[in-house]
């Protein structure tokens, strides 16, 4: 670099002077950036596309098959798909909940801190300084927004596939009542909200695992394995006493939202349980991350 660059740099620093008077970006800038980066990643889109494929596959399979689905075989609500396409969304969610959704959430939540540590960007974020607590909060919000995006992807893809391939009209609920099309969309949104809340506990667990390692794949795998283990434990009658404490226990209990009037009891119980997991694993993640030496 010669004289030219030197004068450039001097003028650059002069031009930078207004930076000091401009209003600081504040803490929210990092949240905006986190969400931008999350949804600019090809990986995120691949996960969402895979999720969208689940209801579409169900719809296409049912449409192409000559025999009508019989009650009691296949996933719940599958037999209703041919009568009302909106059930594609519900069936899609039910099929995705045990594995596909926890898988994608495990990938995103397990990657939160460990991914940054693995890339080495964690040290630059903290040297900026992002603040360790705020970074944890931002990362958790990012994972939670992904949960929302994931469930809404399944529901939206299901509704669209249902609209395209099956008759859609007023919906007959489990209670026998019939609701208008507009209200049935509202119910779909409610169910998506229920499933999103269901995944918040798992996201907190993933965040905690993510603070333990610099290998993101490890944290992802641990989170996903734990979600499977919880469901296995939930299926063993010998462990009845444990079931209400498992974060996966209420995952499929959104049928109450398909009754008239809507029964919010299960929604509340589930939200309380997920809040408990968020509190415990959030505290563990905080305890681990705030004192951790960043050596990656």
């Amino acid at each position, binding site marked *: 670099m010669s004289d030219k660059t030197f004068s450039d740099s001097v003028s650059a620093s002069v031009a930078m002077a207004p930076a000091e008077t401009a209003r600081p970006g504040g803490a929210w800038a990092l949240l905006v950036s986190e969400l931008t980066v999350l949804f600019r990643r090809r990986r995120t889109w691949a996960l969402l596309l895979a999720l969208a494929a689940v209801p579409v596959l169900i719809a296409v399979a049912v449409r192409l098959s000559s025999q009508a689905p019989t009650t009691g075989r296949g996933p719940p609500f599958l037999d209703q798909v041919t009568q009302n396409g909106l059930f594609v969304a519900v069936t899609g969610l039910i099929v995705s909940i045990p594995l596909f959704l926890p898988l994608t959430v495990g990938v995103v939540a397990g990657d939160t801190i460990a991914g940054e540590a693995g890339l080495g960007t964690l*040290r630059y974020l903290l040297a900026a300084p992002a603040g360790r607590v705020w970074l944890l909060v931002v990362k958790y919000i990012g994972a939670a927004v992904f949960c929302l995006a994931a469930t809404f992807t399944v529901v939206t893809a299901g509704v669209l596939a249902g609209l395209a391939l099956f008759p859609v009209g007023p919906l007959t609920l489990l209670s026998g009542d019939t609701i208008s099309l507009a209200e049935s969309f509202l119910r779909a949104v409610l169910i998506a909200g229920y499933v999103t809340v269901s995944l918040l506990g798992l996201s907190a667990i993933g965040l905690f695992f993510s603070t333990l390692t610099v290998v993101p794949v490890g944290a992802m795998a641990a989170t996903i394995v734990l979600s499977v283990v919880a469901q296995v434990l939930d299926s063993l009658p010998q462990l009845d006493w444990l079931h209400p404490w498992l974060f996966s226990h209420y995952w499929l209990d959104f049928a109450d939202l398909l009754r008239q009037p809507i029964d919010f009891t299960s929604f509340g119980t589930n939200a309380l349980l997920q809040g408990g997991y968020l509190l415990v694993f959030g505290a563990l993640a905080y305890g681990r991350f705030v004192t951790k030496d960043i050596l990656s």
Partner: protein
Amino acid sequence: MTPATRAGELAIETRALTKRFGHQIAVDAIDLAVPLGSVFGFLGPNGSGKTTSIRVMLGLAAATSGEVSVLGESMPGRLARVLPQVGALVEGPAFYPFLSGAANLRRLDSADRAAPTRNRRARVDRALERVGLSNAAGKKVSAYSLGMKQRLGIANALLMPRRLLVLDEPTNGLDPQGTREVRALVRSLAGEGTTVFVSSHLLAEVEHMCTHAAIMSAGRLVAQGTLDELRAGEARVRVRTPDAAAAIRVLAGAGLVAELEPAPDGRGADRSSDADHWVSAPIELPRRGRAAPAEQGSSSAGGQLAEEDIVDALVAGGVRVRGFHVQDTSLEDRFVALTGEGFDVVR
């Protein structure tokens, strides 16, 4: 360390800073004093604790014991106040490979609460321009070469006006042109009043850009001060002459222990009568460039001779002097003397 550096304000100060990993001591009670406004070289072989010290200074790792203050504030207690004024490149650049260079800088800049959002793009563009990456700003970092990533890492440290820059091995992976550019950049930043703390294992680099330096070895701080202070000590006087034997005799008469240097091509000393040889001897000179009155012609016990007296003596002794110069101790000699020779990592 001289009283002068102690008196000035310090950009970085550590007191008995120690960092242990299990039983291993990575940093062993170092007392570092980096004066404000200096370009400070932090030297040491690989694994001597440089990067660990930097991590502790930036609050990335906690000290096992001892204190650190940066820009007059204690760390990591006042981290949120200190770090926005510090630009850092720690243990190599690190970026999101799936984002472009500019997007990476915007991402890292958004983590700094003090950084205004309004002129973020402009500041990112300026930082990229400053390290010569404007043309690659839109390229994904996964397509960057090591040298380009290194430049991007330096650009990241320059996103905001900084009072202190901590650059860990800034010329790693750069070609000679890039190395020169970094040196010029550091000099221009220092000219603007920024304190620059550069860690390196490349001595030439430190000799080229630094005003002060410290030398680490196996976790301990073995020397620090201005470059002149570090280099102070023995110099060597070197004489190019075909009359090697006579030169050695004359120098011995002046109290200097001279020796014949082996020929550079490894042939050994060529004894043919007219070939040039280099004869050299360690010498302690009065500080040159300072007003120390040379004790004329005295070959006192310390061997305090003026250069011209040596030449006089050689010529008077019938030695055909074809070349003569006095070589200061290079930082390299000093470095090797303090940290030991050889490639083995000490720990």
